[in-house]
């Protein structure tokens, strides 16, 4: 029996629950599935053994669906926890699309993490893209529909790059193994790009800020947990120690700070901070030492929980108030006190206050960077850490719950949301204090790290207090960018305006083309110079009933060619 269970990836119960949820109309049953499936997955996770399991034959290929090792173990666990919390958070919502798509998407991400070869990775990679787009479309408005299409296009592109890269790689190495890949071959480069798109590398990041804020309350929370972290996992597996990642990651940590500070939509601010936190992980992967990879795994674990918590708190605000525009919020602490507390806990965690989980994880990456003497990058990361505090640590709770009183008086968030946030908050604090269980899960047990040393704590506190002081000072003198209704143009202008324009132009043209294709054929029959038609059409020269004599000549010509080839052969 246990032998049998060992072969079942924890992803299957969740994916299957999602498929079932898609067809059952009863909301309560679906919610039961959403909470039960992660529990089942957790049981499978606990009974799993290290090694390659769940090998199935599919279309003539051998797919390893369940590789359980140091790296996939910790990602698997946090994905299962996130699935459970998301299920809890969405308990009040009666939406079959979100329920089913959310479960399938979570399960696919989990399955991608456990995929032992590039083909299964590709299959689940595409499944996450296709299932997650429904979470965006579930918002059921035009902006979300458009953003969903853009999102889908980008992610399908990522999948195609991955498949092409994998194919080239397989033709070079003769196998589909998903181990260290490296950038020294064209296949490796394509796979790197595919991962980079999902991981929101600079200039490939716009889908994230474009799509996440447009999804539903629950949808954004679910989306924030999986796609990018799955990409981080894939990078850590395939490209650990790739130097270019250090600089890519450093840029990722720094540039969102500017956009996030001036952004008005608080869920969009959080989307920028997703980028920023991913940057830390990407730097860690680039450094590639055991300590750095431990830091990446631990930080991904913490990040999924605290970022989820922040998105949940903003989701709760959106659910009750109907907006998350900083300019229209304020003073909500009076009516949503618990949400306020949870949001502050999330904010303190993301800012990496001591005694909160991010402190024990992020400092590990910073220490690894320092150990390898990347001082410039270290400086950028310190700046970005202060920036995080600015835009996520202070801005989010301050503008939503304090600032000037908007006069809005709403009910506290629903109980299920509060419970989900409470669990996430407890995890944030628990892991910040009792970090040993988390450290024991890390992939490399030989890299020892002690977070609570005198200089770590003091250094971090100095940084944080300095940043808080800067915020207060700027606010006092009125220099802090005030919350304004505006849309900030990021580099996404290129594909939103320019690219979208091209696509729409092409679409219209295609429509006209297909509508008038018969017209064109009819016209081209009479028009002079339409060579193509003269050659290929049913009455064209290639299709005409050629006299058999002419054909005989053709046949002889080919015979002559073959003879010539045979004659000239050495």
């Amino acid at each position, binding site marked *: 029996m246990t032998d049998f269970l060992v072969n079942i990836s924890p992803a299957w119960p969740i994916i299957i629950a999602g498929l079932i949820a898609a067809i059952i109309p009863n909301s309560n049953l679906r919610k039961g599935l959403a909470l039960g499936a992660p529990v089942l997955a957790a049981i499978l996770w606990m009974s799993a053994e290290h090694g390659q399991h769940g090998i199935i034959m599919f*279309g003539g290929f051998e797919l390893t669906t369940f590789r359980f090792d140091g790296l996939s173990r910790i990602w698997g666990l946090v994905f299962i926890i996130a699935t459970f919390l998301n299920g809890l958070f969405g308990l009040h919502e009666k939406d079959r699309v979100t329920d089913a798509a959310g479960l399938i998407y979570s399960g696919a991400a989990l399955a991608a993490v456990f995929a032992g070869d590039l083909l299964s990775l590709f299959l689940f990679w595409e499944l996450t893209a296709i299932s997650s787009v429904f979470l965006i479309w579930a918002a059921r408005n035009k902006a979300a529909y458009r953003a969903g299409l853009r999102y889908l296009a980008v992610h399908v592109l990522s999948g195609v790059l991955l498949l092409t890269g994998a194919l080239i790689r397989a033709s070079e190495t003769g196998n589909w193994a998903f181990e260290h890949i490296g950038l020294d071959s064209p296949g490796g480069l394509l796979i790197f790009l595919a991962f980079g798109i999902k991981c929101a590398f600079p200039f490939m990041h716009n889908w994230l800020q474009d799509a996440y804020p447009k999804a539903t309350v629950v949808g954004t929370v679910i989306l924030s947990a999986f796609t990018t972290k799955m990409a981080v996992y894939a990078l850590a597996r395939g490209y650990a120690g790739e130097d270019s990642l250090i600089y890519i990651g450093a840029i990722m940590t720094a540039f969102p700070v500017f956009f996030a500070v001036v952004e008005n939509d608080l869920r969009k601010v959080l989307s920028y901070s997703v980028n920023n936190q991913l940057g830390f992980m990407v730097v860690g992967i680039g450094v590639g030492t055991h300590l750095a990879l431990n830091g990446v795994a631990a930080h991904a674990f913490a990040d999924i929980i605290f970022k989820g918590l922040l998105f949940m708190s903003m989701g709760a605000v959106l659910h009750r108030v109907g907006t998350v525009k900083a300019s229209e919020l304020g003073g909500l602490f009076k009516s949503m006190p618990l949400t306020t507390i949870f949001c502050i806990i999330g904010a303190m965690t993301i800012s990496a206050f001591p005694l909160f989980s991010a402190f024990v994880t992020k400092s590990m990456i910073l220490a690894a960077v320092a150990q390898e003497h990347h001082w410039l990058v270290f400086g950028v990361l310190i700046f970005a850490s202060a920036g995080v505090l600015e835009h996520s640590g202070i801005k989010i709770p301050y503008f939503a719950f304090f600032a000037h009183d908007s006069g809005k008086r709403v009910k506290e968030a629903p109980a299920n949301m509060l419970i989900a946030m409470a669990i996430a908050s407890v995890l944030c604090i628990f892991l910040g204090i009792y970090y040993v269980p988390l450290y024991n899960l890390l992939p490399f047990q030989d890299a020892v790290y002690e977070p609570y040393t005198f200089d770590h704590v003091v250094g971090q506190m100095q940084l944080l207090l300095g940043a808080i002081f800067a915020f207060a000072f700027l606010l006092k003198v009125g220099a802090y960018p005030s919350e304004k209704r505006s849309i900030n143009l990021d580099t996404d202008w290129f594909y939103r305006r320019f690219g979208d324009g091209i696509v729409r132009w092409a679409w219209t043209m295609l429509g006209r083309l297909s509508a008038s294709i018969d017209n064109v054929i009819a016209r081209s029959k009479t028009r002079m110079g339409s060579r193509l038609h003269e050659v290929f059409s049913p009455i064209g020269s290639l*299709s005409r009933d050629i006299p058999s004599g002419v054909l005989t000549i053709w*046949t002889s010509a080919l015979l002559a060619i073959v003879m010539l080839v*045979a*004659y000239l052969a050495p």
Partner: protein
Amino acid sequence: MIDFITALTPAALIHHAPALVVTVPLILSAFTAIMPSSRAAWGLCLSAALFVGWMVILLFGQLATQDVIVYAMGGWDAPMGITYRVDALNLQILALVASIGLLCVIYGYATVKDEIAKDKRPLFYSAFLICFAGLLGVTITGDAFNVFVFVEISSLATYALIAMGAERDRRALTASYNYLVLGTIGATFFVIGVGFLYMATGTLNMADMAGILAETGHTRVTQAAFAFIVVGLGLKAAMFPLHVWLPNAYATSPSFVTAFLASTATKVAFYALIRFLYAVYTPDTGFVMLSFTWVFAVVGVVGMILASVQALFQSDPRRLLAYSSVAQVGYMMLGLGLGNALGLAAALMHLVNHAIMKGALFMALGAFGLKFGISKISDLNGLGRTMPASAAAFTVAGISLIGIPLTIGFTSKWYLIIAVLERGWWWAVAAVIMSSLLALAYITRMLAAIWMENPPEHHGETVPKTRAPAMVLVPMGLLAFANVYFFFNADFIVGMAQRAASAVMGGQ
């Protein structure tokens, strides 16, 4: 299953199965011709097809325990007598021809009734059985001259079958005539080639020829023989640019014949080509290798693009699919031209897969034709609502033809691309993808008409929903289902193709 059937069969039948596969349909064709009613003729035809299926299953059972079955006709061993030779390569083709033949006979009951005059039906079935026996004969025989005889037997019957489409479309007569002239040239070229080989080696048995050629080496005579055989069989296999007979023949012949020929005739000729290239000549001979690269790969790539473009411009769905068939032959030629085991396996895989999808597509067109006249793409308008079952089968097979994942079309293109990558021919990968995109375009044109347009109207009223007869739906549905089934259980086709490739490549 195979063991069970073998156990139930008398030992004599098992022993003579290679001969009976060919002779039984050939003999029954004479009786079919004199049957008083078309139903009796059909019954006889069906029993012949069932018998062939039975024999092929027996051959499968025998081949499980041995590498090759050699059957000497009349007890005369090679090189004096004619031997029939079954190995992994031609067993696959035999199974294909037998199963497609059986499905087509079932399918034909309704369509033949619709398209052929009553008094000609027994003759029609008789001609079909001759053609069927001829194709099986080409596949199973191990004798070079015998190949020619069976090519002629099947071709002569094919000319008659195509001409029977004249009741529906008079152009069938010119199509048939054109094919007759060209087919005869092809067969003549082939027999000239065989003659040269006989001159050089003094034997007609293929295995024997290969042995003697390996000893004596090649001369100008055998090189000339090579050119004649390649062009002769290439014409039969509709190799670009010798495909010109095919579109008219497919477009005008009865639906039953189109479905059968499209899935078997060119495939068998392609098989014979492989047999000669690999079993008589050897691919490591200089001029054979050179012809792989400079003839097969080139005509394959050019053919798959030009024929696809031509398909895009067609207005008659059947002609469109016929040009698409020419393009698909291009894929197989490319696979053959790669000259490696992977490429040959990909070509053989595509051969089987293409037979399955084109069979389903032509059957679906025939099913539409039972209820509506289909001569333009716009005639397909709205059939998704009028005949949903047939339209669904058409759609599945069409998707497979494009090569979208979850269908066998994807499997064979996938293996083909892997094989091409092994040779490092990037331009050929580009051509395959280009041709797939063209296939996407021409199939989408038809699918858009089927699913997006409004159903046909008659006197201002929408034509009510209708259904093809069960005898049409079942074989068509089976083939459409096979398009998906063999994607998930690819081992059967992939394994068969790989075994076949390694059987002819030997230890290479």
